[in-house]
């Protein structure tokens, strides 16, 4: 292991190289481009012995990944925003066919209007495609989640694709210090990929994706849902193994100053850093506040979220995506739904912020905290329990 300074996108490419992938198929799109660029350079200059497939679109990129993964290869791709939207048709195919592809999605706001900056509208629109979804906060976490991603995805108890989300620019173009693993360490943690018994093989033909009549589709979907739900145990296991091997501290849900907290702030990804500073500032004033960071969004970690919120009076949920006409942001509706039947559940309020790359500041978290507190104390009533936080009215 060594300490280096690296751009987040390079940290991803470096992790993928160390993971000795067999096939990469990708199409460049800002802010993912540096990942695709760096990987194609590694392949071109002989540093990485892999097939790099230049495709004419993201639809083709994921199609190529699916084909390659079905033969048993270790496969990586990266995209974001409209690119992920173009992959949409193939996303459930990769997952339903139980192909352990690892993808980095550099969260970018979906059009319109044309916006290359970060929010979670892309990955949230892919929420129900049956992939495992992680959110990374920084370069270190991104590197580690990609590495652990291959182990988890390829585990015989899982066999599902993984989307590692990281906010565009904030977690792609920023140069950060991080500890990278040596090849020897990676080889021990991530052995060469096993070719599954059912992999595409001319000597042992199999049929994939054949027509399924109403008398079998229910069982197919249930098998897939069971696999995604039970993957949480393997995720927990691998997080813990990696943490002890490489001196990290990875849990599915991470808490910060939650011990005696009465109000919690729950969110994913890069904004957690800013949120910790806001929590510290509020703690200085004597406020009993803490933060809950969600590292895994799919499978949704019900037990961990209920556990972390058990002593709270109120919980503010921060979304970076809009569920148009729905129950607040996607994270809000999931968290509130997870807590609905739990005893002594906290009051849950939702805040949408950070849309299309608008900066999320400590003041935003502090304002949301104060609003949550005044609603809790009955000093203020709100028309809806969720709202946009940063709108110029």
């Amino acid at each position: 292991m060594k300490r280096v300074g690296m751009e987040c996108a390079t940290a991803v490419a470096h992790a993928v190289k160390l993971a000795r992938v067999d096939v990469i198929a990708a199409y460049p799109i800002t802010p993912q481009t540096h990942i695709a660029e760096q990987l194609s350079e590694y392949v071109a200059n002989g540093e990485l012995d892999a097939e790099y497939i230049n495709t004419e679109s993201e639809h083709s990129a994921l199609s190529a990944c699916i084909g390659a993964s079905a033969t048993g290869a270790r496969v990586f791709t990266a995209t974001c925003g409209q690119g992920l939207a173009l992959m949409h048709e193939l996303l459930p195919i990769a997952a339903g066919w139980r192909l352990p592809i690892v993808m980095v999605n550099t969260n970018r706001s979906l059009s319109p209007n044309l916006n290359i900056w970060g929010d979670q509208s892309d990955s949230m629109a892919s929420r129900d495609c049956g992939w495992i979804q992680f959110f990374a906060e920084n370069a270190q976490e991104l590197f580690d989640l990609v590495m652990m991603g291959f182990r988890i995805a390829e585990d015989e108890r899982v066999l599902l694709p993984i989307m590692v989300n990281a906010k565009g620019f904030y977690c792609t173009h920023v140069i950060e210090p991080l500890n990278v693993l040596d090849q020897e360490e990676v080889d021990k943690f991530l052995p060469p990929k096993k070719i599954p018994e059912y992999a595409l093989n001319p000597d042992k033909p199999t049929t994939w994706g054949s027509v399924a009549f109403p008398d079998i589709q229910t069982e197919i979907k249930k098998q897939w849902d069971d696999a995604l739900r039970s993957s949480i145990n393997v995720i927990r296991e691998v997080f813990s193994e990696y943490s002890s091997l490489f001196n990290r501290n990875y849990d599915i849900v991470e808490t910060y100053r939650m011990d005696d907290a009465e109000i919690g702030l729950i969110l994913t990804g890069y904004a957690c850093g800013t949120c910790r500073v806001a929590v510290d500032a509020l703690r200085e004033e004597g406020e009993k506040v803490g933060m809950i960071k969600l590292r895994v969004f799919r499978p949704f970690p019900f037990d961990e979220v209920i556990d972390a919120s058990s002593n709270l009076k109120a919980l503010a949920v921060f979304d970076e995506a809009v569920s148009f006409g729905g129950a607040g942001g996607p994270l809000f509706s999931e968290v509130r739904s997870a807590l609905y039947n739990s005893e002594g559940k906290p009051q849950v309020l939702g805040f949408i912020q950070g849309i299309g790359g608008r900066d999320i500041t400590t003041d935003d978290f502090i304002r949301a905290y104060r609003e949550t507190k005044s609603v809790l104390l009955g000093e203020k009533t709100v028309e809806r329990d969720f709202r946009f936080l940063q709108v110029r009215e």
Partner: protein
Amino acid sequence: MKFKRTAKPRLSELPIAAIIPEPGNSKHYSTGDWRSLRPVIDREKCTRCGLCWIYCPDTAIIKAEEGRRYYVDLNYCKGCGICAEECPVKAITMVMEEEP
């Protein structure tokens, strides 16, 4: 991982990703129960030209006795009626399945 294929597998019997692990298994699918109309061959009119055998999309017309006799394999015949349509001497009639 053990593969086992049954017509209506239970969840526990379903191969991963519903992959069909053995090749050449389409004959296990009895598509005959899709049928509402059944072809009936009039042996008096039939000239043994074999056009029904050529046209049948499901190879459900069976050529027997070196072409001296043709019959319908009702396990697979979907009742599409192409054989009746193509028969040059109108020796094939489509009858409702309920009728004897």
